[in-house]
């Protein structure tokens, strides 16, 4: 080529210098990204490649469907519980199992706790360092940070000059010893960093506070899930019985546990309201001019919805986290989404390393095929030790290209918030309006990398509030005499039909997640997961439509291509995962820089 238009409205030009970022992230499959920049260092072509086959689908075949949750939650190092939840929902859907109200409340609290936890850890420990410069934090007078802290969040107790001085000294020791610890290998002299040093020090301090605080959230999951990491789940409900008097069965939830969870929920709300959201607003205020990264968000967004208010009702009006699809940026119309309809969600493979009998057609996940077909295009450049440049005109990713009614879609907190806003959800609209007003920005500012980062913070706030809602709801239900947490009527496979299929869905922290299952003779006959990163990291489809990562990178100015902090900002804003090593190579494959990305 060199210039071409994609059907979904983007202009691609691959004539400029190629920059390779590899890996970007490794969880949910490793990921690599290649871009072409023009003479002004503006990204004109972007290629996102999943470089590892998850293969989960094939290892589940033939296994007991009641165990699928435990396998699926071992696949990811971060959002383990959400895979487990989605899996038990898929099996329950297939077998028409109704779960008790308490189980629904507990699952929702677990899922909301995961949302808050993941968002918080993502913001401070992965994404913050795309905006915050810890080295610059050494330059401030701690008094200035103390004044700033008291101004932006007067209710946060840790705000004295002495406190910030201590942190600064600790940081100084790390820097002076040449061991920046987790802050090693950043692009700390890059002009893309815009915060004044007092804000940098505040953010670094909260990086440490958040690390300390997040353990509280884990405790809640441990109480309900029996253990954490990898809490226990159960087809038919939750594996923790309730016994308020606290005598009798060991391991049952009693009033002491429930009070502990209640207290944790209060602390979570406090931390999000007094630290996370004020930090987000303070940092965003200095990057208002950095408007890149919108990509598909202003056009096509998708959410399956989650957090059923009443148990066993997965219709859109019972889901507190919104469901819907928006096409071509028309916020006036939110389309209903049906995960069972074979014409809605389909996966395509013309640019993916899989084989279909007819690759011009997409397959609904129930009919999904996961058969590897690794082949590279004729224009691939590389040596025997690595691919230097992928050929995106051919197959170029282990990620399939999922489409909703043929459209490439963005999923995740921003998608959910845009859909909630378009639907007129009262709480979401209030949060968005407050944020835009505080930052003095128009609604269009939402459709950006910063919008994605802001939506995540607002959603953490929302999720913390909803934890309280479900805790209160469950306590009321228990007090009314219902302590049931599991329905085991159909536990025994002998009660199952010979052949059934089901779908389970949830909103994982990083976006819409679906598991489709077919059960035959009590064993898994087919299992397909379409994970959020499949949507966002999707390669091109038959028509050449680009996916969310690729679209979001286009037209971004990169100050220094060898230090592509701008690329990382945008990719990280999708929460592809936790910390990882990033490797940058120039066109000739020579290593220019290596960073620690967090």
């Amino acid at each position: 080529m060199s210039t071409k238009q994609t059907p979904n409205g983007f202009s691609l030009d691959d004539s400029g210098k190629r920059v390779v970022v590899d890996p970007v992230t490794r969880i949910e499959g490793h990921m690599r990204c290649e871009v072409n920049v023009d003479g002004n260092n503006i990204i004109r072509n972007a290629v996102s490649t999943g470089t590892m086959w998850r293969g989960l689908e094939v290892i589940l075949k033939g296994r007991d469907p009641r165990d699928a949750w435990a396998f699926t939650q071992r696949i990811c190092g971060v959002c383990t519980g959400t895979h487990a939840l989605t899996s038990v929902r898929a099996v329950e859907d297939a077998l028409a199992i109704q779960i008790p109200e308490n189980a629904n409340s507990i699952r929702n609290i677990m899922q909301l706790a995961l949302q808050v936890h993941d968002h918080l850890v993502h913001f401070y420990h992965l994404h913050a360092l795309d905006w915050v410069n810890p080295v610059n934090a050494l330059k401030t007078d701690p008094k200035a940070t103390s004044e700033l802290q008291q101004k932006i969040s007067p209710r946060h107790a840790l705000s004295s000059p002495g406190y910030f001085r201590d942190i600064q000294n600790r940081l100084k020791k790390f820097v002076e010893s040449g061991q920046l610890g987790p802050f090693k290998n950043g692009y700390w002299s890059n002009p893309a960093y815009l915060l004044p040093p007092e804000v940098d020090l505040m953010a670094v301090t909260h990086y440490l506070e958040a690390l300390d605080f997040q353990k509280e959230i884990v405790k809640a999951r441990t109480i309900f899930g029996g253990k954490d990491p990898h809490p226990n789940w159960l087809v038919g409900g939750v594996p923790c019985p309730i016994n308020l008097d606290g005598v009798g069965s060991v391991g049952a939830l009693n009033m002491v546990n429930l009070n502990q969870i209640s207290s944790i929920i209060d602390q979570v709300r406090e931390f999000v309201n007094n630290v996370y959201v004020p930090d987000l607003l303070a940092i965003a205020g200095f990057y208002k001019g950095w408007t890149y990264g919108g990509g598909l968000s202003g056009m096509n967004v998708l959410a399956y919805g989650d957090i059923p208010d009443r148990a066993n009702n997965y219709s859109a009006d019972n889901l507190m986290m919104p469901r819907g699809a928006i096409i071509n940026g028309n916020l006036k119309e939110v389309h209903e989404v049906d995960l069972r309809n074979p014409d809605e969600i389909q996966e395509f493979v013309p640019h993916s390393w899989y084989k279909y009998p007819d690759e011009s057609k997409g397959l609904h996940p129930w009919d999904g095929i996961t058969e590897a077909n690794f082949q590279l295009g004729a224009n691939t450049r590389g040596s025997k030790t690595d691919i230097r440049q992928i050929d995106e005109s051919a197959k170029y990713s282990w990620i399939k290209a999922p489409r909703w009614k043929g459209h490439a879609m963005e999923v995740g907190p921003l998608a959910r918030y845009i859909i909630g806003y378009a639907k007129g959800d009262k709480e979401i609209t209030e949060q968005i309006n407050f944020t835009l007003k505080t930052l003095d920005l128009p609604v269009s500012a939402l459709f950006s990398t910063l919008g994605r980062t802001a939506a995540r913070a607002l959603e953490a706030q929302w999720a913390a509030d909803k934890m309280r809602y479900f805790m209160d709801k469950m306590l009321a239900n228990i007090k009314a005499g219902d302590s049931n947490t599991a329905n085991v009527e159909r536990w025994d496979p002998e009660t199952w039909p010979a052949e059934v299929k089901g779908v389970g869905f949830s909103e994982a922290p990083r976006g819409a997640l679906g598991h489709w299952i077919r059960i035959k003779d009590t064993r898994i006959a087919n299992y397909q997961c379409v994970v959020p990163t499949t949507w966002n990291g999707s390669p091109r489809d038959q028509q050449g439509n680009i996916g969310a990562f690729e679209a979001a990178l286009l037209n971004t100015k990169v100050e220094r291509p060898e230090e592509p902090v701008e690329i990382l900002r945008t990719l990280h804003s999708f929460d592809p995962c936790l910390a990882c090593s990033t490797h940058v190579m120039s066109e000739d494959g020579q290593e220019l820089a290596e960073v620690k990305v967090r």
Partner: protein
Amino acid sequence: MSGATAKRLPHVLILGIGNLLWADEGFGVRAVEAFQQRYHTPDSVRVMDGGTQGVYLVQEVRDADLLVVFDAIDYGLPPGTLKLIEGEAVPKYLGVKKVSLHQTGFQEVLALAEMLGDYPQQLLLIGVQPEEIEDFGGSLRPAIKAQIEPALQHAVAYLRHQGIAVRPRSSPLEIDPYAAAIDDIRRYETERPGPEQACRLGDERVVWSGTYEVGYRPADLGGEFLQVGLDQHLDSYRRARFEREE
């Protein structure tokens, strides 16, 4: 908050990390499972399956005065070799070749704990060099499984040496019959579907291992066999950097 006071017993954490779905990568988790089933420990000891978790384990490490970690390691040793690494000698990178999903990683967990001023006073890594990790859905190879017992003996001896009263259970803990198959190595192995049904290919590197026949081979570039190795191509670079830092 770090450090044992004169009054309280040191907090001990016995942690197994790894990915059960990646054959020998699951060594750490299987070892810690076996430890829990076979040994009784005082209340000051926590035995934890850290699984594929990364940074979320940091509070566990911070709370520990004494940390014993079971994991798969890559020291270029013959497969199945057991290696004990203690204290400062514990390297920055654990896990094998970074394919394990927990690689995000334990190195960072240690760095963060250190930065927060709560590094364990005593640290023992009990590692085993894997034989096979590219067998998705597979279990431990016999040579690796055979190292579980010696690994437990080393852990017990180390803990006793530190004054921790570890004793064998009169009979091993029974595995919850309702537990998922993955949590029971026997069922994980025996209920594994055959290769014709559940293909063993983990990722593209397996395509190159020569063990499996695949329908298509990538284009031959310039007469050289093209290898796609996200991790391999970083290895020499990592080694160089590691040596520089050393």
